[in-house]
């Protein structure tokens, strides 16, 4: 009996993988120097990065922060580095950043009706636009993040009326009375629906608020204002500018275009020929022309289209045209959401005996809109970026302001710093939103697979 065995009975101890395929070196080999082509690419990329950074970093960081004019900047540069080339003059941002953010919006709007002096020191500067922005986030959050408590939706409902009041000021009763119009419509529908039937209720729900807005609201608002005066000092919309203006245009356009876009999308999907062709015509027209031509319409034609004597300022006109523009794109996004719903959902709604609007409200829209949120966010990013176009018609958005700043004798000749700052802010804003939209897409994806 020999104890010789040709089969190994115990396992060899596991060995560490070779040093060249694990850890940092392994990673580098696998990802950067895998074959000669990749190696060449890596070396080229490294050279490219080095080239970019060697120009950019000194420019960004060997720079002048405290200077009141470009000439002062140049003097400091000449003193410190001996040349004015390759160094940024961030003094212009230091000097004008509030203007780039808020335009000419007064930090403490003057002459409040509730007399608290000029408000200086009582509240932080720019508290109104800042508050409006914070409230915007609070109002949008429950819509975007479903895990947040539902009562926050009250803020979302109140925001459309609160925001104009905060930004433009004036009596609080104005926006409240406008809101009251919606309440009137809602209750008219509720009450009349049981008494007189759906159609009468629907007509009343449309006509009554219009009558209220046209004839009664301003009277009641004036009356209430004379009894209990709650008002913020008024700020003219010409004072709006900078990033505040961009955000305002973006938010208002998306907010207002959502209902409009839903209606257009439904119209486009409907089998009523005339309604469908009207909607298709509108959508294709708006999508077929560049935004700049629509802004030309806002700046030179809208007043011609309206009754003689009507006059409202350029910012409102731009808001109207950008809203129409966004509505056409929104309609396409919502249509995509509608098309993505399985047919069974429509059939299910029919088999429950729901009528068209009930089916839309209870079954179709909640799902379609949920699917559309990433699309809506990217439409918003697009509109937000496109707000820079208003500089072409003379509004002072960040890009327009950069021209106005250069027209000041102190800063004549400053380019890169302003562009860099503006691009940086746009990037931060849009990038974070697009990340959110991606997160949402992933979340929705798992739900539907």
């Amino acid at each position, binding site marked *: 009996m020999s104890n010789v065995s040709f089969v190994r009975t115990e396992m060899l101890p596991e060995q560490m993988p070779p040093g060249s395929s694990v850890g940092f070196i392994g990673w580098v080999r696998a*990802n*950067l120097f*895998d074959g000669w082509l*990749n190696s060449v*690419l*890596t070396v080229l*990329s*490294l050279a*490219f*990065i080095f080239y970019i950074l060697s120009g950019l970093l000194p420019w960004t960081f060997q720079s002048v922060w405290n200077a009141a004019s470009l000439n002062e900047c140049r003097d400091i540069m000449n003193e410190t580095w001996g040349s004015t080339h390759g160094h940024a003059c961030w003094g212009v941002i230091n000097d004008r950043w509030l203007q780039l953010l808020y335009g000419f919006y007064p930090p403490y709007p003057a002459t409040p009706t509730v007399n608290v002096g000029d408000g200086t020191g009582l509240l932080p500067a720019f508290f109104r636009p800042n508050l409006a922005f914070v409230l915007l986030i609070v109002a949008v959050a429950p819509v975007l993040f479903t895990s947040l408590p539902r009562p926050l939706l009250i803020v979302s409902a109140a925001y459309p009326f609160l925001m104009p009041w905060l930004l433009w000021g004036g009596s609080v009763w104005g926006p409240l009375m406008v809101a009251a119009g919606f309440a009137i419509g809602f209750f008219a529908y509720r009450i009349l629906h049981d008494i007189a039937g759906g*159609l009468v209720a629907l007509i009343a729900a449309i006509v009554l608020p219009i009558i209220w807005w046209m004839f009664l609201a301003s009277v009641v608002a004036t009356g209430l204002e004379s009894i209990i005066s709650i008002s913020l000092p008024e700020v003219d919309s010409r004072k709006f500018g900078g990033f505040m203006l961009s955000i305002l245009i973006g938010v208002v356009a998306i907010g207002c275009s959502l209902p409009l876009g839903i209606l257009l999308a439904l119209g486009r999907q409907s*089998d*009523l*020929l*005339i*309604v469908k062709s*009207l909607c298709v015509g509108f959508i*294709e*027209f708006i*999508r*077929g*022309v*560049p*935004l*700049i*031509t629509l802004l*030309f*319409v806002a700046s*030179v*034609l809208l*007043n*011609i*289209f*309206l*009754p*003689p004597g009507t006059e409202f300022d350029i910012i409102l006109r731009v808001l109207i045209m950008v809203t129409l523009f966004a509505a056409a794109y929104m309609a396409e996004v919502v249509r995509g959401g509608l098309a993505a719903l399985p047919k069974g959902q429509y059939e299910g709604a029919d088999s429950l005996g729901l009528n068209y609007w009930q089916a839309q409200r209870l079954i179709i829209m909640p799902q379609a809109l949920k699917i559309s949120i990433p699309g809506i966010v990217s439409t918003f*990013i697009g509109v937000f*970026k*496109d*707000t*820079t*176009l208003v*500089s*072409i018609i003379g509004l002072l958005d960040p*890009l327009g302001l950069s021209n106005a700043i250069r027209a000041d004798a102190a800063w004549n000749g400053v*380019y*890169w710093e302003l*562009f860099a700052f*503006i*691009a940086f802010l*746009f*990037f931060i*804003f*849009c*990038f974070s939103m*697009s990340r959110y939209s991606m997160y949402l897409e992933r979340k929705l994806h798992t739900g539907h697979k």
Partner: protein
Amino acid sequence: MTTLTDPPKESFRLSMLIYDTRYRSMTIQVVAMIGFMLLAAWLINNTMTNLATLGKPVNLGFLTDRAGYDINQRLVDYSNNDSHLRAAFVGLLNTLLVAFLGCITATIIGVLVGVLRLSKNWLVAKIMTVYVEMFRNVPVLLWIVLAMAILIESLPAPRAFRGAEPEATMKLFDTVAITNRGVYVPEPLFSNSLGNIHLFGSSSLRFDLSVDLLVLAIVFGLSLFGIAKVNARAHRIQDATGDRPKTIWINLGLFFVPSVITLIALGFHLGYPELKGFNFTGGTHMRNSLIALWLALSLYTAAFIAEIVRGGILAISHGQTEAASALGLRPGKTMRLVILPQALRVIIPPLISNYLNLTKNSSLAIAVGYMDITGTLGGITMNQTGRELESVLMLMGCYLLISLSISSVMNWYNNRVKLVER
């Protein structure tokens, strides 16, 4: 006994217009139509009243007036004695030019970046990600203005080329001058030129077509046709006998010889740019405004196209790659022969809308002084004549026409490559 009777014929009642589903849709449509027409009438009425008050009734007569301004970038002949309509036509061609160039380069860069973003090389993939995010999240107007500023600031002015020891020299054996006024490249010239065909007489749409180029195009087309014939014959022989005759030399000959002979016959030579007076003269001048706009629009749109391409490639199931590897195809060939053709179907519809966006964004040319149709008709003409309504409406009409033609051509193509489902 019971008799079967027809149900009583329902008489038409007004309420049926609302409650009967057969008629309701009709009612809604009529109401919508009336509403739309009322709105249109209201707008038109307002416009007429307002224009009458301003004393500017709608009148297209201004289009035939002398324009009085010059346009630097033009594809057809134009001088300040021509009409506003001619200026608009020059602008329209400029719009089409930059849109065409932009779409081509955006596609090339976009596909390249989209594929490289999926590269196994970590560094390359990351650089491409940074590029895509940077361009997607900053307004295109800013990129256009920046591109222009970079070109102006970083390139040498023509006067830097002057003197015994110039600061800047011409590139590529003294044939190409890159200045901050644009790039001057050699232009093709024909010493035995056959002249031009003048189309549309002396109207505003007149157009000169070079016979030389026409002849060249025809000869080249015939060559391609010949090559196709040769290949078809080779195929037939291969199918019949299994042996493919060698066609490469015949094809190469067909490709080059007729064209070269034509070129020699026409007396082809290059006109080189040279510094004369204030500027370079001779050669083809690609102005900075065009280059900046072209560059910014293509880079911006390419970032979007890259994402579409990446999405399209990722949408192809991994099994396709594995199957291709099993067949022994190398990664490059897998991409070219298996993945991309399939991804194309997913890619094309969003690609169309990006082409449309690029065309529409070309209207921002106004920011760098490129005289596209927004710059001529919607800019200087509108300004000098004060005819806002007519100019803006015509401008919108032009863009609408361009957009609709692009989308119909691309949709036709999309329908052709679409997978036929059974």
